[in-house]
Structure formats: C-alpha cells, structure tokens
C-alpha cells in the first residue's frame, strides 16, 4: 500500500502543493490505483522478455530538414504570463 510520506514526496517532485485533506484523499485514491495495477505482479513473468514498447514497430525516422516553426505570437498565446519575447514564470532561484 501507498503511505502518506510517499504521496508527499511524489507531490513535491511534481511541484504540487496539497492540503492535509487533499493528501489524505490522494493517499487513498492513489493507493487504490497502485493496488489495482499491483495485481499484475501475481503473474509469473520469469520466462517473459521485458517489453520496451507496446507496438511492434521500430526505426521510425524523419529526415533532417528544418521547417518553419510556429509564429512566436502563436507559441506564446496560451501562456498565463508572457512578454513580447518570452514566457514569464515565477523566479527560478539559484541553479
């Protein structure tokens, strides 16, 4: 089962701020999801090759030709905050 600390850690990594209440709900719901998926571990996969991809395709390539990109205006159009050139985000401190 999923414990509260794990959910807190995942939330931190995803830069999500959860209230105590939300944390409790998430722990319960995420726990159920992980538990559901975990049923798969009941299967014996000792002799099964690990699968890297769900489709049996490989080597799909494009050629190396540059094409026009989006207009800057269009590229920035959905940004909550922007200036004439860039997306603006809360200050990223340090490196």
């Amino acid at each position: 089962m999923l414990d509260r600390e794990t959910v807190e850690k995942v939330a931190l990594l995803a830069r999500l701020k959860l209230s105590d209440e939300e944390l409790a709900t998430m722990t319960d719901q995420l726990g159920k999801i992980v538990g559901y998926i975990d049923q798969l571990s009941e299967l014996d996969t000792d002799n099964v090759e690990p699968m890297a991809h769900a489709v049996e395709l490989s080597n799909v390539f494009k050629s190396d030709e540059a094409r026009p990109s989006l207009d800057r205006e269009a590229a920035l159009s959905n940004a909550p905050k922007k200036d004439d050139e860039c997306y603006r985000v809360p200050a990223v401190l340090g490196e």
Partner: protein
Amino acid sequence: MSIEFETIIGLEVHVQLATESKLFCRCSTKFGSPPNTQTCPVCTGSPGALPVMNRHAFDLSLKTAVALNCEIPKFTKWDRKQYYYPDLPKGYQISQFDLPMSQHGYLEISDSKDRFETKKVGITRAHLEEDAGKSMHDEAAGKADSRIDLNRTGTPLLEIVSEPDMRSPLEARAYLDELKLLLTYINVSDCNMQEGSLRVDANVNLHLQTDDGKVATPIVEVKNMNSFRAVERALAYEVDRQLAHWKKTGEKIGDVPKQTRGWDDSAEVTKAQRSKEESSDYRYFPDPDLVPITTTDEQVAKVRDSLCELPAALRSRLVKEQSITPYDAGVIVNQGRAVVDYFLEVAEGCGDGKQASNWVQRDVLKNLKENEQTIDQFGMSATSLAALVKSVKAGDLDNSRAGEVFEYMLANGKDVVASMAALGIEKVDDSALDDLCRELLAANPKVVADVQGGNQKAIGALIGQAKKKNPNVSPNDIRGKCLAMIAEMS
C-alpha cells in the same frame, strides 16, 4: 602533515550534434535566433503532439560511438526522465536510461610532454537526449519573474559519460582536448562551448592513504565550467578543498549526500548548489510516443569502414612516416585535417618532414593566425612551399634569405624561382665566394689575428661586411670559407 592521496575524476560531456533540425521535430537548431521563434507543439509539449526521431542525429551519434570504440547494442529505446523545471515544458526530458545506444568504449589520451603515461579512459556510455530551454533571470531589474526561451528545447545532445579513470586535472584536460578534436575530425559537432554546443560536468573525489587504510572523500559534481581551462582550474581547486575539508571534518564518502558545486570563474572557487535529486527520483519509464531503434552488425561495420583517420592514428602516422616529434605531430593534427593535408603535401613535395613541419608551424600557422585565416584561404599552395623548402635544402637559396622569399611569394603569388629573381637572389658561385673572402681577410687583419689567436667568433664581424658587398652570400658559407682560408695561412 602531508598525506598520500589519489585524485579520481570522471567527466560527463554533453555535445550538441550538428543537425539542421531538432531531435524529434523539424524546428531549426540554429543558434542565436530571437527567443521562442524556433518552437512547435512538439517542442512545447502540447497535448497530442507526437515526436519522431531525427535519422541524421542517430547516424551522428552512431559515428561518434564507433569512433569512441563503444559497443553498439542491437536494440535501444527512449525513456522519460521526469523533473519539473520551467525550461522543460513537457515535465520530462526524453533521454535514454537502461538501454543506451552505446556503451563500454574508451578514448586514449597521451601527453606529448610526458607529464602522464598514455592511458585509455573508459567510456561508460554515450546516449542521446534532448536539450531543455533556457531560463533568464532578470535580477538586475529586480523583477520577480524569470523569462523562458524554448528555442533550444529538443536540440539533439549526445551525453558521453566517462569512467572515473582520470587521475589529475591535467589528464581531465587532455581527455577533453582529445574528445573535442575527435568530434571535430568526424564532423559530428562544432563543439563551440560559448554557444553551449559542448558542456562539461565533472565528478571528483580523493582516495586518501591513511593509517586506517584507504579512505575516499565524498564525490562532488562540479558544474558551470565554461572553458576547458575552467575545468582544469575547478578540479585543481576541488582537490585542495576536499583535502582541507577532510582534514578538518574527516567526512568520507557515504557520510553526506552527493554534493553539486558550481564553479565561480571570477572568484576561482567552487560553491555548493542545491543537493541533487536522487537518480530514482527521476522516475524513468519508457516513452510510449517513440518506438525503439535497432542496429545491425552490418550497419556498425559500415560506419566503422567509413570513418576518417582519427587524430590519434594520424599523429602516430606523422611521427612514423615523416620523422617528426610527437609534440610537432600534435601541434599539426590539432589544427585540423586541412592543415595536416597541407603539411603532408609540403613534406612529400620537399622530401623532408622535419623541414616541412618547421615551415608549416613557424611560417604558415603564424601567418594564418596573424591574418585570422584558415588554411584554405592561405595565399601559398603546398606545392609552392615545397619548392621553396627544396631550394633551401639544395643550397640554391640560403636559409638567411628564405624568410624574405617566403614573404615575397605570399604577397605576390609568385613561385620560388620568380620570387628569387625578383629579389635579385642568386646562388653565389664558388669562385666569387673565394674572391670575396680573400678581399675581406685582406681588409681585416685584426680579425685574422684574433681567429689565429683562438677566437673563432671574431669571424662574425665579417658577415655584415660580406652581406653589404653581396646580399646573396650565405653567412654560413662566408664563415666556413674564411675560417678555412685563415687555417691555410698559418
């Protein structure tokens, strides 16, 4: 208290592959365009956008991996490396985790001044990944925002990870120099550090020999080094710092989490940065949007066969076939293949590798540097220079005037014969030389007496006089002839 220790260095190099378009879309990779003018839904991670792998980027990485003596697995795939940062719009970077496109190679490094022994530095792996965007911090204006430019997002990078096989900052520098030279020779990257086409992170710690046995200091990752010289200096600083820190605290590997430190070039120190997230925190998983890549032995063999002669092989060939020193071979090979070809043409044309090397290094390279030219723009063909060297070797042109002829040839685009004629240079025949020497000795009895008294250097006073009478005479011939005549007198 002095203590014996060994420095352990491993390097991670990110190199931008020389493609026209990005790794998974067709936006241009051109450097220096206005912010956010080279993006598309794939770059910005818009819902529904599908990345497709750039064939050329894979070919370039394959070429590099083969040149680095790597094994090329038959199967490689893409993984998502999850982390949140404003310049990473998708919330993950497409990279390669457990099945990289190449691994277990090596790069040989040596020092032409023999400051360390020639060694093979292991290459743990080289894998492909996409670059992130750029954050700009408007600190000066005191604004609270950071500005994000996503032009760089999705640019193809090859991350080349070395084994911790280097034992000094000097070896680390040699590795970087050799790697850059190799990448430039095989044309996979312009390796321009100023434009971010080549970036270096270093892992360093010390193995100390103490009374209680061997002790390792905590491994530190050093970042923010914007030149190879900065890497060398940052590592040297870090060695001193870790030794001092260990003496003070006794802290050893495992006592503290891995630390990241940034090099401050003006202060010449490394400074602690925020602690690095554990590798498992990146929560890698296979990217479902991209299919795997398979490579056959035939493909790898073909790449191997098509590789040009690599710098190391070229250096040993020059030493062996042209009888020049490893140092000279290094200087010439470092200039790039075009200069090597020019040198070889001169060497073969005049039949003297050593002289060709002298001329190319002293006159040609100096001239190119002064005029900020490349060898293709140089105004004298290798054939012309070979003819000049040949004239000097044959004694038709005295060494003392060869530089003058070189300048004339270069300035006027004339061959050596025409240039010598234009400068009035002709070989002084033996009888003319005899006459001149006899005349000089007769006019300078004191010099003759000095030489007879054992001061051979006194003859030097005659050289200037001889040159005045006939600028074509060779100082060496005058010296030799006059000494011989004085010897006959007594």
